[in-house]
């Protein structure tokens, strides 16, 4: 009897060990699968509004020579459940990859039909990177020094043309879910390249004549007229302090509400926190 009991117990132990071993093998296989590498490219996009120019809600024909923007701490995530910016909180994910460095990019670079601006690439484990975060900070050096965004161009209306140089110094941390657009981005397959995009909607500041006046976008935008009012000697050269002192209180408050909404992922909303 004693031998039978021992035999049964040994059998049970072997079965259990085999089960654990099977699970460990499965875990190992998953790890091997996840360790297959691909390339993730981070891009910044001011869309056709920046590349081709547009007419503001108050009729100014705006074109851009340079739109400098400084980005830092760019991270991509695999989130489950998917991150939703409408929940207004930071991204929580076990799987995060980072693009090291700080980058000042010119969104107007390359002309009307230029490709989206490449910020950098990293090797990452294959997977669907369905969330992204980044900081928009002041440039430490270069043409845009001291500005998070520096917009250089010209605006025309009624045969009047005003060259402008507008600086923005507010810094923001952005969190966003998956890209919303013509294609699905962020799906990295082994040995291949996928991209994620940080999109910036400058029509949120100036409004868009092609959009109905009553549309929420135009209702929130301040247009170009408040900037035109800052012109001296036929040109606008306004840094953050000039804008704060030159705008009316109502215009400035509206302007402050608009700035954090510049960051998007394609047409998808991002959650922004001021730094």
């Amino acid at each position, binding site marked *: 009897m004693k031998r039978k009991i021992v035999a049964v117990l040994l059998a049970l132990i072997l079965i*259990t060990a085999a*089960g*654990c071993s099977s699970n460990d093998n499965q875990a190992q296989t998953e790890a091997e699968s996840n360790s297959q590498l691909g390339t993730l490219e981070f891009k910044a996009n001011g869309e056709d509004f920046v590349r081709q120019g547009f007419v503001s809600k108050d009729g100014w024909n705006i074109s851009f020579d340079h739109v400098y923007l400084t980005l830092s701490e760019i991270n991509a995530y695999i989130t489950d459940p998917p991150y939703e910016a409408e929940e207004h909180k930071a991204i929580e994910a076990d799987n995060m990859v980072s693009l090291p460095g700080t980058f000042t990019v010119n969104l107007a670079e390359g002309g009307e039909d230029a490709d989206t601006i490449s910020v950098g690439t990293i090797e990452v484990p294959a997977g669907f990177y369905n969330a992204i975060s980044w900081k928009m900070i002041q440039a430490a050096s270069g043409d845009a020094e001291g500005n998070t965004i520096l917009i250089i161009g010209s605006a025309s209306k009624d045969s009047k043309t005003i060259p402008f140089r507008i600086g923005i110094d507010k810094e923001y941390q952005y969190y966003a879910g998956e890209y919303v*657009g013509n294609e699905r981005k962020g799906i990295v397959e082994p040995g291949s390249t996928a991209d994620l995009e940080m999109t910036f909607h400058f029509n949120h500041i100036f409004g868009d004549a092609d959009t109905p006046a009553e549309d929420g976008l135009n209702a929130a935008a301040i247009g170009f007229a408040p900037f035109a009012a800052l012109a001296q000697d036929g040109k606008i050269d306004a840094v953050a302090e000039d804008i704060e002192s030159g705008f009316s209180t109502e215009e400035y408050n509206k302007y402050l509400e608009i700035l954090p909404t510049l960051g998007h992922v394609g047409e*998808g909303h991002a959650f922004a926190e001021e730094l």
Partner: protein
Amino acid sequence: MKRYISIVVLIFIFMVNLSGTAMAHGVVFEYHSSMTYIITGNYDDGTPLSEAQVTVYAPDDPKNAWKTGSSDDEGKYFFTPDISKPGIWTIQFRKAGHGGTVNIEVGEESAVSSSSAYSSAQMAIMAIAVIWGLIGTALYFKKEKK
């Protein structure tokens, strides 16, 4: 400008159409079940996201659209997933530079969660506990025989 889209799943309808199979007059019935979600897209000021371009991605092919369509005048889109494809389905609404995403988990949630609930170490501890229980039971009956 807070100009994002709040996409709200308003109603979840689980429709079950049942009928029997009958032989009389050669009429044959079939039955099937399906579930349909009514997804409503609104701007954050409450205006319906009407006639928006809608793209649906299935969990087994995240790269390619499973279906495309458009919302109605009230911003509603009727979404009937293929229930043989469990997992997270993604539905994107887009219109004139505005867009948003809603993710809906379909089917087999419990099976998925139970398969990943315990680590190997936890499983080993549970197995040892079971074996220890068997030893105790065996010793109890052995003692009774004596």
